[in-house]
């Protein structure tokens, strides 16, 4: 392996810029890091080059640990976005710089510089000064300079970003052939998808400091693992369907299971992706040679050069929810984006308002369905805290966010929601705001009926909000995050599991969330002294160990703690001891209307730890009564 990054982490002012990134780049491989600006891709290059010190993790170049070496000793060639040519030197002097540092003879330097300038197509321009060259030429000088001393690896930071489109495509072709010729392992950073697809042997997708997925361009496009990657690359139609023993069920339509889906998700809901080119359109249902979605109305037709782009609207399908393209809130219909070749278009011309049968040739099931958060706000101070923390967590977890405004629908609430939208807007997968002029409980109930959410986030005061919390838990399977006051994104979570209860579910959702936050987790179980006989310790330890194992599968480092005593007091003591900033407790999953009481351990603990965000995780394995013991 030419480049190996192990658990690389970098913070700027406490802000995670590179978050636990591990990556291997093979010999001679052209690897592209793709992500929007601010996703941390450039920082990774700076870390590899040694321009920025590493906080945690290791960097190996050709099996040599360079983590703590200065840039001079790493033997990397770096091409900067702004070229960074030495203005006081000629083009040849620039190219020869690395060699002159290494005391290579003048004749040899000249030979090498001529050779490289020829390689990048600039022979004869050696005596020019950098400012006498065009942008594209300067970039090629920068490349020649980086390659001249034969570095072990080549790092390119958006090298084509500042050039115009035509030169860019030409240089791209050049770059690829030069890289092939020299066989030097390369990391290329860009935010341009087309560039990435064109150049890469493999692509790594970055978002908010994390390397989400790595794969060949084809793999990432056709078989993405996460919702983010699915919608980041190209256009994606995404639906939520069900996983049944017969296969994937989307309305009336069944797809056989083709990969080991059962292991992927214990959820019955699965997220289904199909690309515009996978969609088939026919005038009548008999002509459809693939599973059909239904009869749709054409909404838009656009000319796209080599192909025609259409957007179609399907009527609601029961049990199916559309994720993208997004539909306006309250609408049940499903939008589908598709493309057709001119030939297909001329065989079956379509205008807006026409009807067509929609079928899908192939679907892909996402291994990790995206999360969806509902943030409850009434404009109060503590709901502001919920908005803050919820927004940050959603950004890290790539969750879709719905902001739910409730209470009196006046100007103040409207402007508050507007402000919230603005504040949350950047970096969220999707964001919508809805309002209901009712109390929080009814508002949540109405919103949930429209569309279920994985997590509801709300401001919380243990003296006032406990009954509301209980009622919100009562209608649905959502988890709940209570935010008593403004706080930064949690870095250390205490997950309380009830000893003897077999449920790993308690741990699973919490673990997923904690992984997104890249926080540390501690599993705690507490028992009254009277119950610690008869192998309790052994059983609890084994139980906690299995929890740690499932957390480590998620990539969350976890510790375990066993305590005896009164449950709320021990939880409280551990919270103080370990300076945790998030508490996770379980609550039962009940049938709607059955009623949930938090009066026991949860309620007591909430009143004893009143100022830390608390996640209430729902589990089938927690019996209604168990927390009250």
């Amino acid at each position, binding site marked *: 392996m030419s480049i190996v990054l192990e658990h690389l982490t970098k913070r700027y002012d406490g802000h995670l810029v590179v978050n636990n990134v591990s990556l291997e780049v093979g010999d001679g491989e052209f690897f592209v890091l793709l992500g929007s600006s601010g996703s941390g891709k450039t920082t990774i290059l700076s870390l590899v080059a040694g321009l920025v010190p590493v906080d945690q993790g290791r960097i190996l170049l050709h099996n040599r640990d360079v983590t703590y070496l200065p840039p001079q000793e790493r033997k990397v060639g*770096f091409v*900067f976005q702004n070229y960074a040519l030495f203005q006081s030197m000629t083009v040849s002097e620039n190219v020869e710089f690395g060699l002159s540092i290494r005391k290579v003879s003048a004749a040899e330097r000249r030979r090498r510089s001529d050779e490289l300038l020829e390689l990048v197509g600039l022979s004869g321009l050696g005596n020019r000064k950098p400012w006498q060259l065009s942008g594209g030429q300067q970039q090629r000088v920068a490349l020649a300079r980086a390659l001249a001393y034969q570095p072990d690896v080549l790092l390119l930071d958006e090298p084509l970003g500042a050039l115009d489109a035509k030169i860019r495509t030409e240089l791209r072709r050049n770059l690829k052939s030069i890289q092939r010729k020299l066989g030097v392992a390369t990391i290329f950073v860009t935010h341009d998808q087309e560039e990435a697809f064109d150049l890469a042997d493999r692509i790594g997708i970055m978002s908010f400091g994390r390397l989400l997925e790595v794969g060949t361009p084809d793999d990432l496009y056709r078989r993405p693992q996460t919702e983010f990657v699915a919608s980041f690359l190209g256009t994606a139609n995404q639906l939520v369907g069900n996983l049944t023993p017969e296969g994937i069920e989307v309305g009336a339509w069944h797809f056989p299971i083709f990969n080991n889906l059962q292991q992927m998700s214990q959820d019955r809901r699965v997220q289904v992706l199909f690309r515009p080119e996978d969609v088939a359109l026919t005038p009548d249902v008999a002509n459809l040679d693939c599973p059909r979605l239904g009869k749709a109305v054409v909404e838009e037709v656009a000319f796209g050069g080599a192909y025609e782009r259409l957007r179609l609207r399907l009527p609601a399908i029961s049990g199916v929810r559309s994720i993208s393209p997004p539909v306006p809130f309250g609408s049940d219909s499903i939008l589908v984006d598709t493309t057709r070749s001119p030939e297909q278009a001329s065989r079956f011309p379509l205008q807006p308002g026409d009807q067509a049968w929609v079928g899908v040739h192939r679907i892909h099931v996402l291994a990790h369905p995206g999360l969806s958060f509902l943030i409850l706000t009434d404009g109060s101070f503590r709901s502001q805290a919920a908005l803050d923390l919820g927004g940050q967590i959603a950004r890290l977890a790539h969750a879709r966010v719905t902001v739910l405004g409730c209470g009196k629908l006046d100007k103040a609430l409207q402007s508050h929601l507007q402000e919230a939208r603005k504040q949350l807007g950047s970096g969220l997968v999707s964001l919508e705001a809805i309002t209901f002029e009712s109390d929080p409980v009814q508002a949540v109930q109405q919103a949930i009926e429209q569309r279920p959410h994985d997590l509801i986030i709300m401001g919380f005061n243990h003296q006032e909000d406990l009954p509301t919390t209980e009622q919100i838990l009562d209608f649905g399977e959502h988890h709940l995050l209570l935010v008593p006051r403004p706080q930064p994104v949690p870095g250390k979570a205490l997950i309380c599991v009830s000893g003897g209860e077999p449920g790993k579910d308690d741990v699973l959702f919490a673990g997923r969330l904690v992984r997104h936050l890249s926080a540390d987790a501690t599993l705690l179980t507490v028992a009254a002294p009277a119950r610690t006989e008869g192998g309790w310790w052994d059983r609890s330890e084994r139980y906690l160990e299995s929890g740690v194992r499932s957390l480590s599968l998620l990539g969350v480092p976890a510790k375990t703690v066993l305590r005896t005593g009164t449950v709320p007091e021990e939880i409280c003591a551990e919270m103080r001891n370990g300076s945790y900033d998030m508490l996770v407790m379980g609550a039962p999953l009940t049938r709607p209307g059955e009623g949930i009481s938090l009066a026991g351990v949860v309620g007591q603990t909430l009143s004893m730890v009143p100022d830390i965000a608390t996640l209430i995780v729902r589990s089938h394995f927690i019996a209604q009564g168990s927390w009250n013991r």
Partner: protein
Amino acid sequence: MESLRKPLSRLAQLSLRPGKQQVSYQSPWGRWALRGTALAYLTAFLLIPLFVIIQDGLREGLAGLWHQVTLPIAWNALMLTLWTAAVMTLINTIIGTLTAFVLVRYEFPGKMLLNSLIDLPLAIPTLVTGVMLVTLYGPQEALGAWLKEQFDFSIIFAPPGIILALLFITLPFVVRTVQPVLMNLDRSQEYAAATLGAGSWTIFRRITLPPLLLPLTSGALLSFARAIGEFGAVVIVAGNIPLYSQTAAVYVLGEVESENRLGASAMSVFMIAISFGLMMLVERLQPRQ
């Protein structure tokens, strides 16, 4: 009138800036009045006094001027002025660059304070500077006495005192000319050099320094020019001992007081010539648009 103006403006276009015609929103009278005021002011307050002193210095011709300047005491004062200024400029260039570098590149407690202290010498009356130095290094004071006793080295009433005073006064010149250039310098060139294997000294010498050379030189020349005319601090510190610690500016005062106007004017003309030459040089060094 109109027919006359057209060919004229075309001529202006041809000869000066092809294709670029200045748009005027003022009446011609207003424009000329403005220029006239500025020129009249300059003439009255700058050119006439300059002309008068040059004329006075050349009263007995170039030979007479040369004779006055090459009198032993005058010549010695002039040489002392030049070499102390030169030594000061050398030190100031190095330390000034270093200070600018530290101020731009490093973070440390008290940086803001230091940054504002740099300009203080411009605000302090130079006489006060002289008094401060005498108070610190004077032969009666602890430090001055100790230096004299241990190393037989006197600062006050001797050339080292002059250099110290000049250093103090011209501190801002190099720092303030180098600082903005250093601030706007693109760091990625240095990073690029580092990845290519250059050590920090090589990076400084080959990458950082070249763009600083021009501002550095003009800062140095400015401080040199400023030092030649320095009077207030030097008159207190130097002790005004002819042939030993009397500088040109102090010499001029002496000649005025002893009513040798020709000597005073001749030396003045000489100093004006040096300063003017330096300013021309600085002007030439400024990067052009």
